[in-house]
């Protein structure tokens, strides 16, 4: 634990000095906040909290992208080799990466809430305890997913390519950017199996319905399950040297991280209509019970 703490402090210092990190972890999420709440919401007080939930979800999901790139960059530069010569375990490095990212993501989320309230006058900020728990578990889950991508890819180009594909799916098919009601019947079926969908839905329920953590138990279990599987696998598949190549089998192992969300998606698709829930959020800021939409439609103005 001593090593993990020392590495966490070091990682945080390095991240604070990295302009790219500051851009992606602070400037971009705030850009999303102003874009969604200032432009896309068109001042509709019902939609503001819905979009705040989407922005918070995107901020948390951003940990996925950042960590995988960092780890591959460190491996390619030969930095991890030097740590390997010291009494440092792969798990020390992985834990410190997640904690450092988490501790630097939290202030951004707090700032987003403050700006939402002060600048955009968002009426409800929901159940903050649930939002905090969801941010914590979500960060650990998405950061671990990033780590496993770093563990099974061999080059930065490969990492970036896989990241682009997965990130696009998470961002555009989960309701984080485009509301599920606008995506069409078949695409929304995919959304049922994406961790990002449940992160967005979780934040929307916490902010709009004031949902407590117990009401989001399946979401928490899935996020924790995926995070745990991803962390254990990335510690097992961790590579210190740029010349150690990931075996093809490793990529198949990485697919195991979607198991909790396959189970949740299967269960949710039989019990909850995410599309009608999404529709209800946009119709009335979540004040009404969800109803199944007849046709896909854009958010009301």
């Amino acid at each position, binding site marked *: 634990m001593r090593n993990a703490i020392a590495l966490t402090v*070091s990682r945080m210092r390095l991240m604070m*000095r*990295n302009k790219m990190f500051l851009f992606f972890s602070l400037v971009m999420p705030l850009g999303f906040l102003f874009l969604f709440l200032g432009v896309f919401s068109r001042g509709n007080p019902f939609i503001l909290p819905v979009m705040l939930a989407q922005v918070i979800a995107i901020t948390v999901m951003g940990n996925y992208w950042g960590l995988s790139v960092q780890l591959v960059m460190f491996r390619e*530069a030969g930095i991890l*080799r*030097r740590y390997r*010569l*010291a*009494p*440092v375990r792969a798990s020390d490095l992985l834990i410190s990466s997640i904690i450092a990212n988490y501790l630097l993501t939290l202030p951004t989320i707090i700032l987003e809430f403050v700006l939402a309230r002060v600048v955009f006058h968002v009426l409800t900020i929901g159940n903050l305890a649930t939002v905090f728990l969801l941010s914590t578990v979500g960060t650990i889950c998405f950061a671990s997913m990033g780590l496993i991508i770093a563990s099974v890819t061999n080059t930065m180009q490969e990492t970036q390519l896989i990241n682009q594909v997965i990130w696009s799916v998470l961002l555009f098919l989960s309701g984080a950017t485009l509301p599920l009601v606008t995506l069409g019947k078949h695409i929304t079926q995919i959304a049922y199996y994406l961790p990002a969908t449940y992160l967005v839905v979780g934040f929307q329920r916490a902010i709009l319905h004031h949902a407590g953590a117990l009401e989001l138990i399946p979401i928490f279990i899935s996020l924790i399950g995926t995070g745990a599987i991803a962390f254990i696998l990335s510690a097992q598949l961790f590579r210190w040297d740029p010349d150690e190549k990931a075996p093809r089998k490793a990529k198949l192992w990485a697919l195991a991280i979607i198991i909790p969300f396959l189970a949740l998606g299967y269960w949710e698709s039989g019990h909850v209509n995410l599309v009608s829930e999404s529709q209800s959020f946009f119709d009335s800021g979540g004040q009404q019970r969800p109803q199944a939409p007849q046709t896909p439609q854009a958010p009301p103005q």
Partner: protein
Amino acid sequence: MSTSIIEVQDLKKNYGAVEALRGVSFGVQEGEVFGLLGPNGAGKTTAVEILEGLRQPNSGSVSVCGMDPLSGGKSYKELIGGVLQSTALPEKMKVAEALDLFAGFYHRKRSTNDLLKRFGLAEKRGAFYSQLSGGQKQRLALAMALVNEPRVLFFDEPTAGLDPQVRREIYDIIEELKSEKKTILITTHYIEEAERLCDRVAIMDAGQIIKSGTPRELKQASAGTTRIEVRLARPDSVETLKGLEGVADCREFDGYYVVHSKAVPKTIVALVKHLESTGNELAGLEIATPTLEDVFIELTGRRLRD
């Protein structure tokens, strides 16, 4: 009889079809500076990285301080320090932070301030890693290798790519460590480095140790010959030069010949007579005692940096 602190027996390592190590064996005594000398691709780095616990051998046995580097885990890492051939630190990490961070990984540690002073980095303590020169980076790497006061140090090509001035600075540091009776295993392809720093040297080529001993022993074993470097106005036949009186061996390099002679005056007289008879001229002649490079050439037929 003293026991070896490093013991390597019949070490073999393959990378796919490539045999990087083909049965390497050697031992290093406590307080000794032992050098692995050889060209790139000889297997030196593979051997050192196995000793550091960074690579797994295909077969053979390795023991350092009585421990197996692979299974020794954290306790083993506490005992060793090293400078890797290709490594780096994050660009935005400060010099003092790097030493503090790595010192924090060990139970036994040295003061960062002492290390900064000793390695001439006190003024750079707040500088980012990316702002350091090649020599400063290497001095920091050496300082980091010492943060835990290790019993055994592994230096893998510690001066590769550095200019001669910086190389000499690094030699001074290693000589200081030598005077402190640190056990050091150093790999190099620089002859002068091996001759100046090492108590004993093992010459490696193509994954094998082809000769080992003190630098003096190795040079003496070079057939007791004297090295004569000959430059001619026009090319001549190596076989003809080999036939001159007193010549033990002759090899041709880029425009010059290295002749190993057992009787220098007789060889020179014979050479001059031969050149007169063939109408050739002597463009240059240099006499020197054999170097480790000559020993390497004698053993492999190639130069170290070929």
